[in-house]
């Protein structure tokens, strides 16, 4: 395991904006956990499967949109035979199909399917209205100009929150010391907004809510990579549980930046559109914006104080 550690964690007085962002994320996380525990009818597997079955019926009835040779049509055929995994995938995919979402409740008047679809839509609205992840999250169904900012402070679970906050502290506090608070906050928020835009642009419209600070933090990583491309920075490594096999090492930053990019590009290429999980497109969008922001900042050197070599700690 190898991990960029830079200056480590900074105190509140040294990185107040980073701490404020952390508190805000923490507040939303606690709020989400509280409401999730008491009232959220979350999008369980069964719910996705019901969606999937409805979507499979819809696909099979729309021969013009989905010819028999299309992968979705083939997928819809396999979902009826009890393949719960395929039903779930179709259920997730259905959230990306705006035509389906707009037509499902009006197709086949008085059919059982319609009644079931109405029940499903009611449940969907209920979830979107109550679940904080959906309330704060970013998707085609939410208010673009509000959710593009709010989604950056909501998380899907403890480990999601924990991992993002570690990276926030490491990169955020390092950058905050070298930028003014306003510039740093702008970098953070606009990186997050760009990440959300990239998520929609690359993946297409979807009702699946995007949550998490990782898009904004990818912007910080991109910024850091451009400003410190060839400089050696401090990494924490752990190979074996023995003395001499863990500690700090100085490595050129591009090695870590490359590994971030490789992971996201590989993830993006290898993940079919319908799979959920990590939003690699958002990471890449945030990273690119952060890198571009760093490049643009070269024109305004007064806004950025270069780190001296003494600031880097050796092992």
């Amino acid at each position, binding site marked *: 395991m190898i991990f960029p550690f830079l200056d480590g964690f900074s105190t509140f007085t040294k990185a107040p904006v980073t701490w404020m962002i952390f508190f805000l994320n923490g507040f939303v996380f606690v709020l989400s956990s509280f409401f999730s525990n008491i009232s959220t009818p979350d999008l369980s597997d069964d719910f996705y499967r019901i969606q999937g079955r409805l979507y499979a019926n819809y696909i099979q009835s729309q021969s013009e949109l989905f010819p028999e040779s299309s992968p979705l049509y083939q997928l819809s055929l396999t979902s009826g035979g009890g393949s719960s995994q395929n039903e779930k995938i179709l259920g997730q995919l259905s959230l990306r199909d705006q035509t389906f979402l707009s037509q499902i409740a009006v197709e086949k008047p008085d059919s059982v399917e319609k009644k079931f679809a109405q029940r499903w839509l009611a449940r969907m609205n209920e979830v979107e209205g109550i679940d904080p992840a959906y309330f704060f999250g970013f998707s085609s169904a939410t208010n673009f100009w509000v959710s593009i900012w709010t989604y950056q402070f909501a998380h899907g679970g403890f480990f999601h929150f924990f991992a993002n906050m570690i990276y926030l502290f490491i990169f955020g506090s390092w950058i905050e010391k070298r930028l003014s608070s306003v510039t740093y906050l702008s970098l953070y928020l606009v990186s997050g907004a760009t990440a959300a835009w990239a998520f929609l642009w690359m993946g297409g419209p979807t009702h699946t809510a995007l949550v998490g600070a990782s898009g904004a933090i990818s912007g910080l990583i991109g910024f850091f990579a451009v400003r410190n491309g060839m400089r050696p920075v401090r990494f924490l490594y752990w*190979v074996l549980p023995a003395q001499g096999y863990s500690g700090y090492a100085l490595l050129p930053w591009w090695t870590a930046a490359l*590994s971030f990019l490789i992971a996201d*590009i590989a993830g993006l290429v*290898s993940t079919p559109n319908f799979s959920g999980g990590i939003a690699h497109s958002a990471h890449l969008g945030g990273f690119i914006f952060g890198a571009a922001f760093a490049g643009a900042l070269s024109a305004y050197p007064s806004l950025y104080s270069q780190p001296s070599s003494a600031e880097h700690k050796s092992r």
Partner: protein
Amino acid sequence: MVLSNATDGSLNRAPRFSPQPLDRIAAFIIDAMILSSLLSLVTAWPLRALREAMLVEDWFMILVSLTVMGLFFVSGAIFYEVLGLRFFCTTFGRRIYGLEVRDATTKKPLSISVAFLRTVSRWVEVVLGWPALAIFLRADRKPFHDRFCQSEVDYRRPLPLRARYVSEPDVVEFKIGKSLGLFIIVFWLSFLASVVDVCERHHLPQTVQAFFAELKEKDDDSMCEAVTTTLERTHLTDDRLDLAIALKTMDTIDSECLKQEIENALKQDYESSAVRFAQAMAEDGELADFYLLSVCEEDSSSEYCKAQKIISAWRDKKIGEAQKEIERSNSSSLIMRVLTALQGLKSKDFKLTEAALAPLWQDPGFVPAVTELKMLSLWGLGERKTAEELFQASLAFSSSATSAQQSYQMCQLELQEGCPTQLSHSCGYLISNMQTLAFHGKPLSALIDLAMCGNPQAQKTIENESLIVQPNWLELLKAYQYQLKGDIKTATKMYDRILRDSESLNWMKAESRLRLFSLSNESAGESKFYKAWLKQDPLSWDWRRQGWTLLKKAFLEKDYLLSLSIAEKLIKIEPNNNRLQDVQIIAELGIGKSPHSKNLKSLVEGKMRDQRREFRREVASASQNVEPLSSKTQLKQRESELREVFGEKK
């Protein structure tokens, strides 16, 4: 054990000494990290193709993408190491820890072929976890690939700062090596065990599902033959029995068929808890109880023993204990749960059914059998609206065979309470989709039941001549129309022809046989049909229909004692059937009971629907002047005759 801290750059080697084992392991970990990172990028596209192909089960693409991925992986891993060893005597990971791989004799870099052989053999060893054992346990600290290729791992020259040589493994290293070996053995054994477990868990439900798919279109009588033929493919006795038990549980095969399977197992001197359980299922009464009690004697850890405990606890009214047993048992055991649920349904313990289904219901996936059981138990518990809703929800996603079975079962429940004038969703669905559902046999019988009890929609559907779905289907309908119109002669001729026609399916023959009997002049009580009916399994599908035919015939013959006897037997299976209660009342009056007698009064005033209460009061009132069918002496004589026929002791 550290013997030297050589930092002077000396070229002198100490052949007995080897580099630190942890350096070699750490170098391998770093190489693996770098490789996996690079390979994730290279194999991203085929991985995506594989994921997409797996979804639509495109086996050609699955094969192609797996091959491409495998090639990338193997060639990537090999080239990374082979090229590194040939041209630099090292790789990234080894470089970080100052290690080199050279020819053990000449100390020169390995040739391409030797480096290739070393890499391949090393990766094979890595998969088995072997190299780490060798460097901790062997005196020369050389894994197989080093000995095979005559290579050695050493620190590069001049010696790096961190270089530390160690001699033969000491006590601590032996302990580490042995622990590691033990861990590897345990890991592989548990891996194998989990593979076997997964196979076992998935094998049975999958096979059962495959059976159902195969047997869907078959009618009841040919089912056993088809099942037996299919079971011949399974060689393991337990597997065969498990499947037979599962099929009996779902009422796909009858007791006779299950008995054949038991005999087959016993012929091979094979006795297990599965055999005992099967015997319990195939028998009735005390014999079934005896077998059920001996299930746990064969294997107290079997699924059947768990099912037995649950059933026994429930029978003894130890509801809490039964629920605990259900919670304790393996939730993945579909058969055990369905068995228990079915037991609950049969004994009208709907709470047992609910408890057994609860874990399955958390992930129902609209499994037809589970959904059907759930509907029936909801109905039994009085939650009829929910049962109807579930039926509707399930319909949207069911095959025609499943819809046929579920609508049939639901409609039967409704029929048991009397002839529905306003059709429910299930009976309505059954009638409006008869064109499709008639393929599956059972819905047709429900349609006929509905038509016979006077439902106009059902009668209209039967008149629809476009319902030609099976040979002789139309003939059967026409014969019934003739029967309704009173042309008994033509109807009898047609039924007779259907019965003799080899193209007729078995259920049609059974139906015709039943109709012919109902139209014949043969007395119900003295007929062979009646004697055969008494010996039949009361839980079979035909038993109820035949019972009703006999009851009608006996009733029309004014044989009220026989009517009462048949009605009492039927009412055990259909306790909420109002029609049967009506028959009971009339029959009780018919055999001379006073309308004010305790039993009759409780029947008239008992738990029943409001609209029927008035009707029954009218019947009871009108029957004040009903003359008893026979004198007391005649009645006693008839009663003793019947008891003889029933095989009951006086």
